[in-house]
């Protein structure tokens, strides 16, 4: 397309020739609108145009709009109809304006109000889950055992290889990293003590919980979130079926049951990884085992597994809650999964801090 701009008293003549489509409009948009803004009268001459599409028509109408008014020369044929149709389409009602921005104090107030509401929702969810669990104790047949087994398989068995791999690597890394400073003090033989206690009391349960939050918590949220978006959860409610008993409890029970096993597996794999490194440093397996026997007591393991069980409960509940609270639209499921993982990890670290304080106070 060619655009020729010439002076034609009392203003400008813009003569278009060839095709005026999206590509041509893009090429001439800046120059044409700049000239139209000059305040001079416009004469839009389309006699040389062979083809005009709607994007071209939008450009021409924009020029007219910027100039205030324009004189048109349109060849006979469908162009006038297209211009009229486009003018009509552009003159439709504008979207209603959004609400005005809140003053900062009101904004903080609303933020606090929303946070309070969200905290109450979480509390209500916990209460509902507790009531459903108690009801299940009275009617244990209502528990969907097949569903519990499915989640045990998905959250547990299928996570075993990952747990073993991460545990092995974790044990090896801890042993290697601690060997350098401990060698300086001639305390290399105490590496099993350090790694053993760290793994059993802290890192084993913590890493297993990270795996559960990342793999299973997000899967719970995505699955239940999809059901929420598809109104399957509403369908359950209308059928008189409690979504807590149907969807939440089987998953939470599975997460609760699987977490100590994952933590134990992580502990064992970590100790083996540490043993491999100790072997490479010249310590035979028997001396490593003897050091571990001297350093570790049953409460280290039991405390760690207890923590892991509580982490499992928290991650299961948070994942299911994120799914049930999913909004509408395609982003809802992704948001629910993100919320489950972030919430699960934050809750795990908070709980770990509480346990650390508690165990310290109790001398455990």
């Amino acid at each position: 397309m060619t655009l020729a701009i010439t002076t034609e008293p009392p203003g400008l003549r813009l003569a278009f020739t060839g095709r005026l489509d999206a590509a041509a409009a893009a090429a001439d948009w800046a120059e044409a609108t700049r000239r139209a803004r000059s305040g001079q009268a416009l004469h839009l001459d389309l006699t040389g145009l062979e083809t005009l599409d709607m994007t071209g028509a939008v450009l021409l109408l924009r020029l007219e709009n910027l100039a205030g008014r324009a004189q048109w020369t349109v060849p006979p044929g469908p162009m006038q109809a297209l211009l009229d149709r486009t003018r009509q389409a552009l003159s439709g009602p504008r979207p209603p304006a959004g609400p005005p921005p809140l003053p900062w104090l009101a904004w903080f107030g609303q933020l606090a109000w929303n946070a309070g509401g969200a905290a109450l929702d979480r509390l209500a969810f916990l209460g509902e889950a507790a009531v459903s669990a108690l009801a299940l104790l009275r009617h244990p047949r209502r528990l969907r055992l097949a569903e519990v087994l499915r989640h045990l398989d998905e959250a547990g068995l299928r996570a075993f290889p990952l747990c073993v791999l991460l545990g092995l690597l974790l044990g090896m890394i801890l042993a290697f990293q601690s060997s350098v400073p401990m060698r300086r003090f001639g305390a290399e033989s105490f590496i099993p003590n350090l790694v053993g206690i760290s793994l059993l009391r802290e890192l084993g349960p913590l890493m297993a919980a990270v795996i559960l939050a990342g793999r299973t918590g997000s899967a719970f949220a995505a699955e239940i979130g999809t059901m929420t978006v598809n109104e399957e959860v509403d369908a359950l409610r209308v059928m008189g079926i409690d979504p807590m008993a149907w969807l939440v409890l089987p998953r939470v029970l599975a997460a609760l049951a699987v977490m100590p096993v994952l933590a134990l597996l992580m502990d064992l794999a970590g100790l083996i990884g540490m043993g491999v490194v100790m072997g490479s440093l010249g310590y035979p397996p028997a001396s490593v085992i003897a050091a571990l026997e001297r350093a570790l007591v049953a409460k280290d393991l039991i405390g760690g597994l207890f923590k892991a069980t509580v982490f499992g409960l928290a991650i299961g509940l948070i994942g299911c809650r994120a799914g049930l609270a999913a909004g509408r639209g395609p982003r809802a499921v992704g948001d629910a999964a993100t919320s489950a993982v972030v919430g699960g990890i934050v809750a795990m670290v908070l709980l770990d801090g509480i346990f650390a304080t508690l165990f310290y106070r109790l001398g455990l």
Partner: protein
Amino acid sequence: MAEPVVQVRGLKAAFGDRTVFENVTFDVKPGEVFVILGGSGCGKSTLLKHLIGLYEPAAGQALVLGQDIHALQGDARQALLRRIGVMWQSGALFGSQSLAENVMVPLEQHTDLPFEARALVARAKLGLVGLSDAAARLPAEISGGMAKRAGIARAMALDPPILFLDEPSAGLDPITSAGLDALIVQLARDLGTTFVVVTHELQSILAIGDRCIMLDKEAKGMIAEGDPRALRDHSDNPTVRAFFRREVMA
């Protein structure tokens, strides 16, 4: 006589050993509303997906705007895809973007128009389908009928000479459905756009269709071609008659 915008010759669709249809041959003329109709499972949407290049034909050829989309690669294929618009059965709008932003996506990706121009073109397209006041809303905030109209607006973003619509009336109430039919006829008349519409909604077929073909699951292919009103009134084929008269086949 103008060259057909779609030419299908001996097209066969198959998934593994299962043949959906074969020997499908027809032309679509410029500016007409062409309907692909038939009962559920006869392969209407499969045929549409062959025409727009999503499925490879097992045999035969489908030319759109004179080109075989399956034979094209790279830029040539992109250039052809820019000249066709598709409205999906569900609307397939991008959920995180407003309706105006949805319409602007093809303009942003395939043209050098500045933002002001893209916003105005999106406004014009949404105005064309009667959604000017919903431009700022998200797809989750609109009804099914509005989503379909927004889908048409997005399909028309680049002013394609041909639009493919998959089940535009499915799941809509009669009034919304009639409004959508009127819109298709109006756009075909005012803009000269060719429409290829997949549907099994009888009233829509009769309201919008200039010509049609009918696919049949049992016959695994085309069993009728022509003016839908003529087929309704004069077809010798019992399946076609039963379809148009809503009769149960013996």
